[in-house]
């Protein structure tokens, strides 16, 4: 049985029942709505979305931790709701931003035990533990009690646990959440290397870091408020915006009133304004370069002086604003 798709998600929906504060008042929260995704084997797939978008909910469904409310999902060719015993030996998962594991066990003991749960023989387990600890730079900590590890090292141990069983499909839920730059970079490098060495292995990763999705993933789905709004390679997603001209502009301090006039200028798609100490930073999205003259004219009319002006390439951040209609930060405030 070898489904060419590592993951198939069809019209998937999930609604949480929330116990009401007041009696008898049952409430519901829609976490996922009509999600459709196909992830072929061998792909490093990213789910990019703000807090509360439904990323963890989707991962929980795909890893058999949570039942879907509607629709269905297949992992490695098996239905996660009805064939969980077939799915489980083929997958593994790592969640970021939490410290899990048995603090009283050493790193090696923790990992060995999880190898046992998957039926790995002890020799293979120790060989893999050695190899993986070496790659993440934890080899000298094998005999350290887990409780004595820093957050970053503990997460690296967790990453090793997730890959130890050589899963067909690995789910990484914000694997670099809360880690410093160095540890995050190590983990991204590890994931890339692991993918490169094993043809046909699949990773689904969630993140709300734009750069992480951009740098790491073969394809990215943008998810917001439980819906997948776009899904393509980072390059293709950005190419859709190439028709726009993007500028970064710093001016002397602007009052918000000035902004409304900019937004109505011909050829101006979107203006984001960030006031700073002593200057204003504007992010302009224009239909074409030529629209810039109107903006500069309007600035002059407001007696504002230009400090710097820079044309820039589109990023996933721009793609997010384009498909969601607001920035990631705004979307997170919008959520709850």
């Amino acid at each position, binding site marked *: 049985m070898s489904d060419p798709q590592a993951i198939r998600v069809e019209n998937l929906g999930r609604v*949480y*029942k929330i116990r009401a504060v007041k009696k008898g008042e049952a409430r519901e929260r829609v976490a996922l709505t009509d999600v459709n995704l196909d992830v072929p084997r061998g792909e490093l797939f990213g789910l990019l979305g703000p807090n509360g978008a439904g990323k963890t*909910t989707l991962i*929980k469904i795909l*890893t*058999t*931790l*949570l*039942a879907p409310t509607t629709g269905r999902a297949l992992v490695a060719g098996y239905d996660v709701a009805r064939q969980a*015993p077939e799915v*489980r*030996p083929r*997958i*593994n*998962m790592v*969640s970021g931003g*939490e*410290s*899990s*594991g*048995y*603090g*009283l*066990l050493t790193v090696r*003991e923790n990992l060995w*035990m*999880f190898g*046992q*749960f*998957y*039926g790995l023989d002890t020799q293979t387990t120790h060989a893999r533990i050695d190899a993986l600890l070496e790659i993440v730079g934890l080899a000298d900590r094998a005999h350290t009690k887990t409780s004595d590890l820093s957050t970053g090292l503990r997460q690296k141990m967790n990453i090793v*646990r997730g890959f130890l069983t050589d899963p067909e499909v690995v789910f990484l839920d914000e694997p670099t959440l809360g880690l410093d730059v160095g540890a995050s970079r190590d983990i991204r490098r590890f994931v890339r290397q692991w993918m490169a060495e094993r043809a046909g292995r699949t990773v689904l990763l969630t993140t709300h870091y734009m750069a992480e999705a951009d740098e790491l993933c073969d394809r990215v789905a943008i998810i917001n408020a439980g819906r997948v709004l776009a899904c393509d390679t980072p390059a293709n997603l950005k190419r859709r915006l190439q028709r726009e001209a993007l500028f970064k502009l710093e001016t002397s301090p602007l009052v918000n009133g000035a902004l409304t006039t900019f937004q109505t200028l011909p050829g101006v798609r979107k203006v984001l304004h960030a006031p700073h100490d002593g200057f204003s930073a504007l992010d302009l999205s224009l239909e074409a370069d030529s629209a810039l003259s109107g903006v500069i004219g309007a600035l002059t009319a407001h007696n504002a002086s230009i400090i710097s002006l820079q044309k820039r390439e589109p990023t996933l951040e721009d793609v997010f604003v384009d498909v969601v209609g607001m920035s990631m930060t705004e979307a997170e405030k919008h959520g709850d």
Partner: protein
Amino acid sequence: MLNTLRRSFVPAAWLGWQIESNWTDPFLFLVFSVVKPVASVLILVFMYQAVSRAGADAPIYAYIYLGNAFYIYVGAVMAGASYSILDDRERYRSLKYIYIAPVSIPIYLFGRAVARFITGTIAVVITLGAGALFFRVPFNPLTVDWPLFLGALALGIVCLTFMGVLIGTWTMTLRTEPWFVGDAVAAALYLFSGAIFPLTVLPSFLQPIGFALPLTYWLELLRRAVLGPGAAAFPTLAAFSNGQLFGILGGITVVFGLVAFLGYRYFDQVARDNGMIDAQSNF
């Protein structure tokens, strides 16, 4: 099948022992695993001496002492399963990783119960020893019917573990006050299991509960194994031979095994439907 059994049971038993024996301070280990259960038996002894004028020679004294000594296993093995689930879910945040591994949760809980059984045994042995040496409990290792004792003990522990699986997987579905469940069930069954008084003391409409519980027959068999004919002072189960009691205990154990399995299937689905495998309770 055999593989699932092995990979669920062996690491679970290993982990359970690591946790149970991880008392960097042996004094703390003694307090938690031994002093607490032993003390609760001694409280009863002193209460008995204060309230009853019958003294240690009355059959009820040995009845109570042994019943309570063996009841230590109920807290250790049955209620322990519930703590294993909660420890994994909330303290170590590892339940979700164990759950998505190709293991069977009921068998995992059986594995975790092994270490609890061992620490429970230490407490029971100390309680019995103290009873024989200091409190005139007629416990003499030379006169114990060991085959009966070990047979009954083994069967009862299996049954307690089935009950633990049931309570443990139920705990998995709870977000509110789950820490309370294991001990609450152990305390509720205490009254109905003949641990502290013969069932005939209960109002007649409550007695059927006691007769449906495996603990009732289990404790009776253990007392008979320890005391010999001296255990026959109470009429409740006097009409049954040891073989009959064994048969009843075995039958109820099979029923509880089935109930535990069906209960697990049901609670597992509920926990998955509600996303409880990685929940944090609000305590």
